[in-house]
């Protein structure tokens, strides 16, 4: 019940923390993929707007895409910071 027991507890804790961390990492990756899909949608809208000569949505779509990119960068940074600590 001495040091052997505490070692087992520590190992389990490390494994649990790792599993929890991986869940967060996968959640973030899924979120980034969803953001990229949204960016593709915005790109399609912008392309259609450009080809039709309307040009009413071009800057809005670009701003939205920029926001998605910024969010993706922020999420990725969160992953890399977590992984390095």
């Amino acid at each position, binding site marked *: 019940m001495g040091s052997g027991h505490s070692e087992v507890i520590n190992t389990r804790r490390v494994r649990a923390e790792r599993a929890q961390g991986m869940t967060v*990492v996968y959640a973030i*990756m899924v979120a*980034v*993929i969803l*953001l*990229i899909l949204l*960016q*593709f949608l*915005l*790109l399609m809208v*912008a*392309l*259609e*707007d*450009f*080809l*039709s*000569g*309307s*040009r009413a949505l*071009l*800057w809005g*779509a*670009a701003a939205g*895409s*920029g926001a*998605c*990119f910024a969010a*993706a*960068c922020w999420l*990725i940074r969160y*992953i*890399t910071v977590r*992984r390095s600590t």
Partner: protein
Amino acid sequence: MADVPAWKDDFPISWADDHYVTRREFTKSLVLVSCATFCANGALAGMGALEAAKSGVVTEPKKIGLVTDLPVGGSRVFEYPSAGDPCLLVRIDADRFVAFGQKCTHLGCPVVYRKEKKQLHCPCHEGTFNAEDGKVIAGPPPRPLPRIDLERKGDELWAVAIRK
């Protein structure tokens, strides 16, 4: 064992290890895709702004041909106001000429003249315009075709302005 070349001993690289993609690499590629998509969106916005600035320039009259060049019911492509801006000249009747921008207002496909129906037709998504005034008759185009004002000087036809 005898078939293994000697150089493989010096460079023992496993294809499975070489092609293995780590989560970190995958994540980096996601960011690159996101960046590329944002750049494409920005480029489209820039090109749109450039075209808007170009369309504000005052257009000069341009000779587009002779009346005798075109038979009744015929059509011909010309460029106005500048090269790369295709337009369609149509001779509806003996004395009636009309001209419109050739790019469909839906997605920019070139329209063609159908003389039996006196319509301009976009084959990409079945858009149809009235050849008299360029208004949309059917299909997905959201706006009429831009109209080119024509002027007849003797036997010559001139494009003088574009009305969007």
